[in-house]
């Protein structure tokens, strides 16, 4: 089976106000997952955690919460810290295995950052 990736997923320290999202997430997934999968996962978790009281939640005709229907990998942008205080935006099609090998190269959980996509 594809090898497993452990990652620590935090709000971007510069782009996200701490009232918006304050939660550090401890996540495991398979190495073939892409950055797009990760940002779609985050969008889904945020929509679920916002719950019915979430601003954009509303009931669609089929009863599926509106917020879940609109979940997409475009809502959040994923970053990795390269040098002291520098952040690189990760392309959505990159696999986490590639991110690990190309950017991270450490034997500890991959540390990634997220922020709402700017153009929204």
């Amino acid at each position, binding site marked *: 089976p594809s090898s497993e990736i*452990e990652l*620590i997923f935090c709000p971007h320290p510069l782009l996200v106000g701490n009232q918006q999202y304050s939660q550090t*997430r401890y996540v495991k997934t398979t190495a073939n997952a892409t950055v797009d*999968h990760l940002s*779609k*996962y985050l969008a889904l*978790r945020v929509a679920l955690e916002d719950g019915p009281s979430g601003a954009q939640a509303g009931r669609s005709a089929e009863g599926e919460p509106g917020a879940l229907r609109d979940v997409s*990998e475009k809502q959040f942008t994923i970053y990795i810290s390269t040098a002291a205080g520098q952040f690189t935006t990760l392309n959505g099609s990159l696999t986490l295995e590639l991110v690990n090998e190309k950017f991270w190269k450490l034997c500890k959980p991959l540390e990634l950052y997220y922020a709402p996509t700017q153009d929204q």
Partner: protein
Amino acid sequence: PEEVIVTDITINSLTVTFREALVARGFFRSWEME
């Protein structure tokens, strides 16, 4: 950790499983070795 949230995400017909815990200790293998 007692609670692990399991979520499947599909993009372009590739489905991957995400597992999330509230704490890393007992969940991350690498944190066991510390």
